[in-house]
């Protein structure tokens, strides 16, 4: 589904990604871990098509298409979703209005008719229930005055409504208490499907107790230094990152 080959990228004149290789197949869940400043968020933003992140080398294909040639909105419509680490507030813009516009943009791109208002409300209420969100989310502005945890839940809610083929979740677990973590994990797990894939960017192993990944990668210094199954995450939790970095030097 997603194939990243030798991807390099620069942010504000600084090389951050220095040759990332990664392949994600349909049905898989991958976790990308690594110390602060290793390039995890940069990778997520580059894949989503952020303009000020300059790709300096390599290729990325998404379902056989050249992902890097597509503008951000077309990547989204093709089924790539980014759950933001810091979801932005858009004052005065209704949360549901944005979500409906997003869904309709996707449907339009797929040649489908716009969603019926009643149908949409039924769908969103059902997903909100799953995410333990109160009805007040329907009337509030996008992330306006949301707590950190509410923002993250809102990201997952959007993901559930948009049903992306590939969801990249950038530290969706950070700032969540244990109950919220369970809710968010249940939401992500509900999306698991043989035709979908999930990439989790995270610092902590605890998320992976709830969403068990097929593969775990350690990203450091702009490269993937080590890959393994879910036991790698546990080892990282126990031993930290230093041994991975050292084994690389040696």
């Amino acid at each position: 589904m997603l194939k990243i080959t030798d991807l390099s990228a620069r942010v504000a004149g600084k090389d951050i990604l220095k040759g990332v290789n990664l392949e994600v197949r349909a049905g898989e869940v991958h976790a990308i871990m690594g110390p602060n400043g290793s390039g995890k968020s940069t990778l997520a933003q580059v894949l989503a098509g952020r303009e000020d992140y300059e790709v300096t080398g390599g290729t990325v294909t998404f379902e056989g298409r050249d992902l890097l040639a597509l503008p951000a909105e077309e990547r989204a419509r093709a089924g790539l979703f980014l759950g933001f680490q810091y979801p932005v507030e858009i004052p005065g813009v209704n949360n549901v209005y944005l979500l409906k516009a997003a869904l309709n943009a996707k449907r339009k791109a797929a040649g489908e008719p716009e969603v019926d208002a009643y149908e949409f409300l039924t769908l969103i209420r059902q997903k909100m229930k799953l995410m333990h969100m109160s009805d007040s989310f329907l009337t509030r502005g996008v992330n306006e005055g949301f707590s950190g945890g509410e923002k993250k839940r809102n990201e997952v809610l959007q993901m559930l409504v948009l049903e992306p083929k590939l969801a990249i979740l950038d530290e969706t677990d950070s700032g969540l208490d244990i109950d919220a973590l369970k809710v968010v994990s249940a939401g992500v797990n509900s999306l698991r499907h043989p035709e979908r894939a999930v990439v989790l960017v995270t610092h902590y192993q605890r998320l992976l107790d709830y969403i068990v990944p097929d593969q775990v990668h350690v990203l450091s210094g702009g490269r993937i230094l080590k890959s393994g199954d879910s036991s790698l995450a546990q080892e990282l939790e126990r031993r930290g990152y230093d041994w991975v970095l050292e084994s690389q030097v040696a």
Partner: protein
Amino acid sequence: MSSKPQDVEALLAQKYRHGFITDIESDSLPPGLDEGVVAAISRKKHEPQFLLDWRLKAFRHWQTMLEPTWAHVHYKPIDYQDISYYSAPRAPANAPKSLDEVDPKLLATYAKLGIPLHERARLAGVAVDAVFDSVSVATTFKEKLGKAGVIFCSFSDAVRDHPQLVERYLGTVVPPGDNFFAALNSAVFSDGSFVYVPPGVRCPMELSTYFRINAAKTGQFERTLIIAAEGASVSYLEGCTAPMRDENQLHAAVVELVALDNAQIKYSTVQNWYPGDENGLGGIYNFVTKRGECRGRDSKISWTQVETGSAITWKYPSCILRGENSIGEFYSVAVANNYQQADTGTKMVHIGRNTKSTIVSKGISAGHAENTYRGLVKILPSAAGARNFTQCDSLLMGPKCAAHTFPYMEVKNPTATVEHEASTSKIGEDQLFYCLQRGISAEDAVNMIVSGFCKVVFKELPMEFAVEAQNLLSVSLEGAVG
């Protein structure tokens, strides 16, 4: 990629949709201004002596005044002798008696602007006075309004049919010598709208005036006077457009509102004068004096404006809160794109006890535009218990525009409460990217973000205008992300 600034800027080739010229024979005065011209305007309109005297007094005063320079706007000096002060579409005989006698070209012009003047094709529940260059060409629903006792007519008709009302109220809120442009208007104003709502009457429909400048080298100097008597209420809307011309045209209007005891006036403007092209050539100079006086106790005047047009906007709709417990409100969205300059805001003058005012100003700047909020909250010693709340927010789109805020406050009564909040934000790359990542196009995303920013003002507009305002805003800012 459609989200790249340069491509978005290509979209910025914004089309002004009302820029056509109506080819109609006009009866115009040659350019130039002296006492003879002032007298000629008065004579053309068969005005009573008191009005001619009033005009001449204003003209003499104007000659002693200097053009104000304190506003944060820049333009080449205006040659007041190079402007024609009167232009009227030539009617076959005398003034048309009914819409059927109005020149079809004029009706077509308004239809093209989306303002049907035929009552059968009317805007639901809105009575319209259409002002073309210097004169009013038609007023709809006069009869229906007449049954309720409401007078809604062109200013010229008011002078002819209700001279005592005009004489009693004209210039009592904006005196002829108030400022340079108001004095000029007082000397040469040609037409405008007049509204009188008698005691205890709620005006049964929205009233609206649609101003259109057509003739070249012509200034438009209209005068609007609205009086809501004791316990009366009225909602009035104003819309404006002009053809695209390379030279600048002057528009210097005066609007006066008078609210007596328990009366309410809601005045809404959607201003879309031609703003000039993307290089700053042409456009309307909009130098307008708008002021309302809450003369009676428990009265209320509310200004709502959406300013998207004009090369230069110089405009401060204000409230004199004289009556006890009276309320003044100002809700504004001012958009400046390309080389537009807007210096706008309000004045709230608290004179009576327990008077209240609210100011909400939203300024949006894009391109090379300069957008200034200028406001005065003045609380006089007599205004015990007065309260004001002011909120000024600015939104910047792109790196070359600017926003300025000049809030002045003079508080002379210690029991008054004055609150001020201000913010400036850039249309976030983050907000834009967030929307793009959800599959929403850059254009839709900007519209969404800007509408969200303006929401509190839009909800003050009457329904028909809220939709128009929203559309205007998206046209004005098409692709203005950089």
